[in-house]
């Protein structure tokens, strides 16, 4: 299937317009579960980026050798291998973060973002294009993680990367670092994105007829 997109479009697409978390609703488990501080979000984002990049390169390299019938299992095996590498590296280099992320590092294997990019892009494109696509999508995921992590850490602890922001009188909203806070944060981010899209549509309405709002469609 020949693609009409340019390399620059492949790169930019994953970052915002087709952001894996906020627009495509993929990879929600890690985005909600370990985004309670900026540092955890960043570590999770980088680990996922690493796995996505390496798997995309490998899948794009061997795409002719992988039989179509067992391609999903092959992708899963490739991904699981790189997740094991990431898991062991994190455990050796930053044990505290490894402990905070817990089982969610292992769960990168079943992150639909990675499998989705292998199936939709890396298995049909050349190695350099797969790299560019993986970098774009990976950055999009890191941006989403950092947005969630920043909001939750600032509101939940009153700190950013551990530095206090508001002085002694700030009463932290504990709820934002607890599970409900994850749901509320992504809910309100989606509300904001929908509002923004609608406002753009209202402004464009004078000219051509509006197109449907795509933000937050079901996975």
């Amino acid at each position, binding site marked *: 299937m020949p693609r009409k997109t340019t390399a620059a479009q492949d790169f930019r697409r994953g970052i915002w317009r087709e952001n894996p978390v906020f627009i495509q609703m993929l990879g929600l488990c890690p985005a*909600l579960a370990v985004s309670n501080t900026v540092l955890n979000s960043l570590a999770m984002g980088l680990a996922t980026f690493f796995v996505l990049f390496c798997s995309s390169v490998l899948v794009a390299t061997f795409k002719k050798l992988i039989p179509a019938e067992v391609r999903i299992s092959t992708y*899963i*095996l490739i991904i699981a291998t790189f997740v094991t590498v990431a898991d062991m590296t994190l455990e050796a280099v930053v044990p505290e973060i490894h402990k905070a992320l817990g089982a969610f590092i292992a769960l990168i294997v*079943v992150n639909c973002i990675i499998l989705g990019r292998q199936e939709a892009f890396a298995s049909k494109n050349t190695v350099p294009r797969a790299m560019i696509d993986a970098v774009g999508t990976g950055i999009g995921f890191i941006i989403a993680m950092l947005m969630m992590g920043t909001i939750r850490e600032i509101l939940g602890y009153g700190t950013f990367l551990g530095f206090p922001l508001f002085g002694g009188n700030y009463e932290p909203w504990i709820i934002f670092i607890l599970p409900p806070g*994850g*749901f509320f944060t992504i809910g309100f981010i989606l509300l904001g994105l*929908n509002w923004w899209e609608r406002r753009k549509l209202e402004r464009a309405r004078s000219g051509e007829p509006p197109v449907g709002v795509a933000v937050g469609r079901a*996975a």
Partner: protein
Amino acid sequence: MGNLFWIFISAMVVNNFTLAYFLGLCPFMGVSGRIYTALRMGAANVFVLTVASICAWFLNTFILPYAPYLKLISFILVIASAVQITEMTIKKLSPALFRALGIYLPLITTNCAILFMAWSQANRGYSFAEGLFFAWGAGAGLTVALVLMASIREDLEYVEIPAIARGNAIVFIIAGILSLAFMGFAGLLSS
């Protein structure tokens, strides 16, 4: 017996897989439109969780002590095969049920709740029975969360929702409120 009961209750309500650990969010967002489909999805999950728990226990007891680095790879392989075998068995035994479950059956492979269950069962060193009750508790918890959300969403159809909240935004905010309610169970375990 008391221990098994608390493992079940803990996985089902106190540390509910969906509302406290954010596991299985894809079906939670995708299949929670109708109570009927939510129940079916929950039942399919309970079945795969049971099979995965038994397989993971065997792997963890007999094979993984010799090759600990294969843990993740072997678990995901076992889950993928378990889902495949489940699919083939159901297709053979009850074609009607197979059609009813549809696409949700193969998708269970990428449901992170299954891998999480196998992973933490191994990490916590659960015995065979403990692992089984953990899996059932997790499955019951997933089903409860799915059915609760589905019943709310069925009623939501008759309510006027502000335009910017339509779609997933309102579902996430409802999930947050449900999760808030489930935090009330947190005191149950300290006793």
